[in-house]
């Protein structure tokens, strides 16, 4: 019998808690071990095509519909791109207001992800009963009061975005040259109070991670274990001092040893990044252009790179605020230095970033310029071309527009955060599946540990999940060569 005829398939379909759905196919070989695994994104909407012909200043209001879970990231990348198209510099207060808005966006996303998606695996355990392994289970274990704090601080972050942007989901405040309106002193005070509270909440969250995860040897072994480790390049935005920045800066890439491989202006991204197409998924695969697409392989000879919280910390020399810097140093000293390749450490990195976002929010809320009414510069140059880049909660996000002299869009290119991680997610899933599924034995707890591999990336496919009780539902079919089910596992 040929090898192909005996291959069996494990299909994890549909994966819920993924934006636009997702599907994992795991193929087993004759021995029942994992031959290969595919992570498919079965959805496409085609913004690159239908945004052509639109007035470019409308793109900050159109492109957030790419993702309703990180619309703030698309809105800001798009606002920066239209500044560049019109060659206009927003006034200092407008830039600060954008960054303040953006810190709130990060806070909303990171709180939701950590508490609803990541915490169930660690607070309750990766092999816990699925009926309890959700945010309700977390609340039951850590206390109702903490559940209330989680909801409260996520709601603060949404309120701040709505105050500035009109709506938290699909904000409207950014346009070429600045912001649609300033904030007043009352609003500033409210933001400052919410920021102060959020700094305390970030401290609490880091302490919780320390107590629940780091003090449990079993969890630390899982986090640092080989099946969740992958050597790759990393990419992220850094400021002038090479500190993590979400809103602006240069793009820095480090190699698997942590050495600087490239550092470039966002506008030069096409010299450094290209995208590969596979026929079995609607999402493309970005890679480092100077190395090339070498397939789904690890290491320094492969162009695969990673983005998102751990990548941002790996590329930076530190954090720009004191408590976040302390947390950053604690993380790397505990884990034995940089870079860290353990994918699950993304959860810790996310909390370090939550601290930075909260501290920076507080700084900006106390900035004497933040209530300045000067938040718009009227463009005067002829529009032509521009690139806008921000760090979305899930990684580096690129918007690139070209227009005619009237400012009507002629060409548009988008590389989204989860796209950057697409190859790495596929590889992490395969590696986890290979380590956990042996001789055809597939149990529910093991499958959850396969899912943990991609949950660490917080794929934007699944961003919104983060706020409600939920669990990853799975149906696993193991079939023989005729497609007849041999084993069915579901939860």
């Amino acid at each position, binding site marked *: 019998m040929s090898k192909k005829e005996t291959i069996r398939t494990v299909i994890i379909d549909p994966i819920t808690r993924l934006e636009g759905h997702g599907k994992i196919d795991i193929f087993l070989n004759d021995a029942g071990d994992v031959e290969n695994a595919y992570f498919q994104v079965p959805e496409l909407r085609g913004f690159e095509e239908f945004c052509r012909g639109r007035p470019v200043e409308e793109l900050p209001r159109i492109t957030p519909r790419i993702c309703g879970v990180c619309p703030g990231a698309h809105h800001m990348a798009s606002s920066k791109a239209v500044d560049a198209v019109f060659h206009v510099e927003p006034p200092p207060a407008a830039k600060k207001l954008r960054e303040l808005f953006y810190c709130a966006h990060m806070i909303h996303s990171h709180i939701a992800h950590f508490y609803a998606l990541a915490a169930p695996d660690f607070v309750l355990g990766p092999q816990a009963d699925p009926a309890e392994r959700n945010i309700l289970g977390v609340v039951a274990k850590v206390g109702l009061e903490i559940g209330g704090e989680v909801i409260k601080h996520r709601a603060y972050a949404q309120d701040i975005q709505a105050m500035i942007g009109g709506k938290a989901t699909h904000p409207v405040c950014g346009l070429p040259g600045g912001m649609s309106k300033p904030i007043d002193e009352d609003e500033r005070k409210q933001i400052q109070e919410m920021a102060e509270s959020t700094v305390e909440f970030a401290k609490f969250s880091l302490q919780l991670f320390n107590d629940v995860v780091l003090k449990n040897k079993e969890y630390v072994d899982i986090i640092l274990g080989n099946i969740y480790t992958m050597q790759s390049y990393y990419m992220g935005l850094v400021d002038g001092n090479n500190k993590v920045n979400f809103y602006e800066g240069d793009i820095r890439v480090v190699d698997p040893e942590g050495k600087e491989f490239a550092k470039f202006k966002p506008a030069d991204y096409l010299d450094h990044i290209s995208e590969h197409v596979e026929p079995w998924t609607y999402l493309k695969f970005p890679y480092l252009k100077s190395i090339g*697409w070498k397939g789904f392989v690890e290491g320094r000879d492969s162009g695969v790179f990673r983005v998102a919280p751990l990548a941002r910390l790996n590329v930076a020399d530190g954090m720009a605020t004191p408590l976040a810097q302390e947390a950053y140093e604690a993380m790397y000293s505990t884990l034995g230095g940089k870079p860290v390749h353990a994918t699950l450490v993304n959860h810790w990195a996310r909390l370090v970033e939550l601290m930075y976002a909260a501290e920076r929010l507080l700084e900006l809320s106390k900035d004497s310029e933040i209530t300045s009414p000067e938040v718009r510069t009227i463009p005067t140059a002829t529009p032509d071309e521009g690139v806008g880049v921000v760090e979305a909660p899930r990684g580096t996000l690129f918007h690139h527009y070209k227009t005619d002299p009237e400012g009507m869009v002629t060409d548009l290119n988008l590389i989204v955060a989860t796209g950057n991680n697409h190859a790495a997610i596929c590889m992490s899933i395969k590696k986890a599946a290979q380590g956990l599924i042996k001789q055809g034995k597939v149990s529910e707890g093991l499958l959850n540990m396969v899912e943990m591999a991609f949950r660490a990336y917080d794929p934007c496919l699944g961003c919104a999940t983060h706020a409600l009780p939920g669990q990853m539902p799975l149906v696993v079919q193991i079939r023989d060569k005729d497609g007849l089910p041999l084993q069915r596992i579901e939860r």
Partner: protein
Amino acid sequence: MDKLKFAVYWAASCGGCDVAILDINEKILDVAQVADIVLWPIALDFKYKDVEALPDASVDVCLFNGAVRNSEQEHMARLLRAKSKVMVAFGSCACFGGIPSLANVSTRERIFQRVYQDTLSTTNPDTVFPQTTCPVPEGELELPEFYDTVRSLEQVIPVEYFVPGCPPPVDLICTALDAIATGQLPPVGSTIASEKILCDECERERSEEKTVRQFKRPWQIIPDREKCFLEQGIICAGPGTRGGCGARCMKANMPCRGCFGPPLGVRDQGAKLLAAMASLVDSEDPTEIAEIVGQIKDPLGTFYRFGLANSVLGRVKP
């Protein structure tokens, strides 16, 4: 009394409608008191087989967000229609096609060509495009079929109620949930929003005079925060858009783009808006009026921003 059975589903959408449901915060616990959520892919357990196994009409209410863009979404829309007593088009994409239906200016072929070939960062020397069935060394992988044309939910299955908005605001979501929970549902076909136009709830001052000599783009001026956008020459979709949103964008000093769809009794939002723009021009000369209105850039993408699928046009001829 038995608990109600709810289903929430998403199709061609961004997830923002699901986040809007989450934004009702602690009220979600009240919902859990009166209803069992049998399906909510973004947040809860979901198995196709379970939905298929449900008896017909056993789900009390299905909130369906997103437009219908591919074969899987159409399948789920039909399946959920059969299983649900009441189908609610939730959000602008399900109601009118939404921003995804701007893709109806193009075709599948041109979208694939653009995304997988022509985009600046794509390297695709062998012209590889995603396939509905794809052989791989270990077997075969499948993807849903991507359609040429995006449709609103009502263009695929019968729909009882509409909750518009991109995303729907929390107060309207609560209104809809209360109506469902208490069984006090409005007549079939109703839209859960205002019956009036947005201008009626917008607090900006209007002179009711024809004032426009030239339409301006939002980047060209810093608009007065108290005055009607249209009277400042900035295109605002208020006169052709249903109210009920709380004028959230106008309060942020940005004009409406029409996400609540056409007001009661209006079939085509874009046609209504074009007529409204013409009526604002400070001229009695039809030629001059046509000339000034003709200066509006991208009328299709502006006046049908959220509703190309449902418009009389439906799509641009390939």
